[in-house]
């Protein structure tokens, strides 16, 4: 697709036809109809969706790393199976989301190239290390919990393919979140060493999880436009507060504390107040200066580079066998999806 930046919006140069298209688009969004791939859409809407969906897909792919870090050390076969299935699901979510993004005229290869070049982002949370087994539980409970809070409203996003991908993804994410909670519960009720491990993990993952909702509303670059287009349905701060409200009783049920002395129930507002987020840390992580930014991107690039000969082989095989009809037509088709 043509590169479109936010300040090159087509509305400014709208001729009559474009004005009609825009009116129809605005009406569809206002009526809560879904925008579909063949529908006309403003270039800035397309670009914004590509940015958001690519970032979402990249987060699934990079997000495999901190959890995969514990597959080889999972302490029981049952937990190992659960963790493997979860990491596999994440690869699957990445695939759905790249496919959904491709309906907007981009390609998975192009998006992965941008990720590898550091030109598109992934969620800041995955730049934190998984230091103990309990981190796997904290990621399930808090990180997946935050993701779900963010993503459930996306099931009603104005862009049809994205909304439909999110419906499938949210079902699986809820399952992972419950498993993460259950993992932490087992640790919290286990030996004192296990309980301590669980508390330490929650202490380290709580604030980064709150940062997953993005910058505060008064400094969120894309929020207002995304909400007008009904890509987003709620503001960052609104979702963040909803998440805190959900987590406080869950932490109590777990027998763990949240590392924020300022959390308390606000009777007047009917919600929890919470302490100040370290936005400097957030900005540093976004700029690439978090604990694992370099490592995550390096591993992703290495997997891609070391796999190049495999993808080349699949493509060469498909070419040869497409040229010889009847030998391996079905197999060649199969590998096109793999190449």
């Amino acid at each position, binding site marked *: 697709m043509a590169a479109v930046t936010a300040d090159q919006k087509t509305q400014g140069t709208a001729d009559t036809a474009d004005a009609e298209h825009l009116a129809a688009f605005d009406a569809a969004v206002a009526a809560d109809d879904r925008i579909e791939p063949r529908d006309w859409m403003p270039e800035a809407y397309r670009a914004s969706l590509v940015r958001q969906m690519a970032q979402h897909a990249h987060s699934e*792919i990079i997000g*495999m*790393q901190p959890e*995969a870090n514990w*597959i*080889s*050390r*999972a*302490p*029981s*076969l*049952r*937990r*190992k*199976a659960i963790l*493997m*299935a979860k*990491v*596999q699901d994440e*690869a*699957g979510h*990445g*695939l759905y989301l*790249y496919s959904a993004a491709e309906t907007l005229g981009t390609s998975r290869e192009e998006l992965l190239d941008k990720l590898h070049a550091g030109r598109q982002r992934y969620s800041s949370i995955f730049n934190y290390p998984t230091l103990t*087994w309990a981190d796997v539980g904290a990621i399930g409970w808090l990180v997946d919990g935050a993701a779900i809070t963010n993503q459930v409203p996306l099931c009603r996003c104005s862009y049809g393919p994205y909304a439909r991908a999110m419906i499938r993804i949210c079902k699986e994410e809820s399952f992972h979140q419950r498993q993460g909670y259950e*993992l932490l519960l*087992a*640790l919290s009720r*286990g*030996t004192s*060493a*296990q309980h301590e491990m669980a508390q330490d993990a929650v202490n380290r993952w709580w604030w980064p999880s709150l940062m997953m909702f993005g910058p505060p509303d008064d400094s969120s670059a894309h929020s207002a436009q995304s909400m007008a287009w009904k890509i987003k349905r709620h503001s960052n701060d609104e979702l963040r507060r909803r998440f805190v409200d959900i987590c406080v009783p869950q932490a109590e049920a777990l027998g763990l504390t949240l590392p924020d002395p300022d959390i308390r129930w606000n009777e007047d507002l009917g919600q929890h107040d919470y302490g100040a987020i370290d936005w400097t840390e957030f900005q540093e992580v976004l700029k690439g200066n978090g604990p694992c930014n370099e490592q995550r991107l390096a*591993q992703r690039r*290495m*997997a*891609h580079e*070391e*796999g*190049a*000969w*495999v*993808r*080349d*082989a*699949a*493509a*060469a*095989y498909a070419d*040869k066998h497409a040229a010889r009809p009847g030998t*391996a037509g079905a*197999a060649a088709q*199969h*590998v096109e*999806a*793999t*190449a």
Partner: protein
Amino acid sequence: MTAALALGDDALVLSHRLGEWAGHAPVLEEEVALANIALDLLGQARMLLSFVGDEDQLAYLREERAFRNVQLVEQPNGDFAHTIARQLYFSVYQHLLYERLAAGQGEFADLAAKAVKEVAYHRDHAEQWVLRLGDGTAESHERMQRALDALWRFTDELFEPVEGVDVDRHALRDGWLAAVTSVVERATLTLPSGPQSGAWTAGAGRQGLHTEPFGRMLAEMQHLHRSHPGASW
């Protein structure tokens, strides 16, 4: 219960090796496929080990000398071609074995009947990749051949007798050799020659004699479980 332990350890160890690919696969579809195969094998391992005793005690508290898996499955992943060669050799063997066990009346008939469907998929996956890598580019051809050659000496062990596995192992071996030969030739590759029967490694894994990388693999796999004796997870 030597048989359940031997077959269970094969599945457990290969599953672990495939799990090491997570986040490193050459293409996203392979992240899904390799994890899927690893999960199938882990499921088989859990059932088989449960025939013998507590699955976690068996997986996490036995030392290297007590494991009964063949040496083939403990071999490090290497490059993608090595992983695929290992998958080809093992999944063709496992598929033919489980077909026979499923057809029989033995204690593994039910398990084999379920697992044989999974293993048929694993075998297809391996065969499809051997074809692509063998008949792909010059580089992939060379890598695939090197991998087939490197792992060849571990294949004879697959046909060592296992107490409690009641199959005609000579017929199993003939079937395996025919199937592997056919794939290798279709992939424009050469069936390895050289030491197979009588190679010094052959048969050792079933007696608890393993190769050096295996101890390190177990150290990683068992470390956390062993650090918290008696804890539940």
